[in-house]
């Protein structure tokens, strides 16, 4: 069976053609809610069937360090 490469951050994964993008995301151990798939430069929905020759990149959607537990105060809170 043919395979295609999926790029995520600085890693590359190989998955079989014929499966959906959502299944491929799960197969490589990622959470489908936490990434978006870009195929040949276009954003695609995760029900897209992976076909031979496709170039797929996953974009992480999660960001964040320490978020304020509340915004009520400014620099002088303590």
């Amino acid at each position, binding site marked *: 069976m043919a395979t295609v490469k999926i790029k995520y951050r600085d890693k590359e994964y190989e998955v079989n053609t014929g499966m959906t993008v959502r299944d491929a995301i799960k197969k490589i151990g990622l959470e489908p809610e936490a990434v978006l798939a870009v195929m040949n430069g276009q954003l*695609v929905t995760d029900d897209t069937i992976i076909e031979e020759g496709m170039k797929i990149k996953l974009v992480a959607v999660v960001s964040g360090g320490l978020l304020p537990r509340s915004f009520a105060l400014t*620099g002088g809170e303590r």
Partner: protein
Amino acid sequence: MKCRKCGGKAVLNMRQHKLALCGEHYLEWLPEQIERFIEKYKMFTRQEKVLVAVSGGKDSLGLWDILHRLGYHTEGLYIGLGIEQDYSDSSRRLSEQFAAERGLTLNIVDVEEKFGATIPELSVISNRGRGKPCSVCGLNKRYIMNRAALEGGFDALATGHNLDDEVAVLMQNTFNWAGGYLARQAPVLPAHDGLVRKTKPLCRIYEREMTAYCLVRGIEYIYEECPHAEGSSTIYYKEILNKMEGDRPGAKLQFYLSFLQAKESGLFANAEEKVDLHPCARCGQPTSAPGDCSFCRMWDKVKLVKKTVAPQPELVSMLA
């Protein structure tokens, strides 16, 4: 999957809304939603001046783009924190590029230029945050945002906190039964006692939706995470919440909306703590500390340790 509006190829499927849209219709739909929330929560009007806090990331740049497209009167505020590994340099460059492309005004406050140390240096010198600069960073950003908004005569401050941010904080505060924090978490915090009105227009927008917006709209944003965010509790909670969302689409939104309803019905009314704020004896910013605020005291330590003649916080203008 097809776009519900035109039948074309969808680029995003929002399972929580049972809605898939093509690029063109998504770029129309998202600003409409945000405008609806701005009006619903009475954040600001088109007659008011809004300061948008931008970090070079997807949420803040996406928000500024949307507010500009909707015709709100905005300026941006970028705070240079001096974060290593090229993080601050890249985020500043992207914020400047974004503003220049749209002919928007970006106010820049570089912490090192203004006060004589970067945030990571300040964190070490002030010995706060248990080896991580995040709490010092948050405190400085909140202080600078408030002071810059007041100095510039802005009616409101808008930040790019999205639904995932709100729900992660909500989960953390719920696990800790932090009643005071739960009572204060809201889409809008009205102005009072020297604090500018704070608004979160993206509070009902998924992080995934903001990423999709920037990708479709072609907004270049800083993709790499702040090097200090690794292992943060927020990311930990977001991962758990995304797992729940995967199993039950809409779980995050439901959690947040139920919380707002519970708050509205008075569930946290008794938890509200009356914080006695008064102006800092030196800079005049509101503080609950007696005498000088923690911002002024923190920067005093820098002057002692670095033996610099960094300007006094009370004498520095944020926007000059």
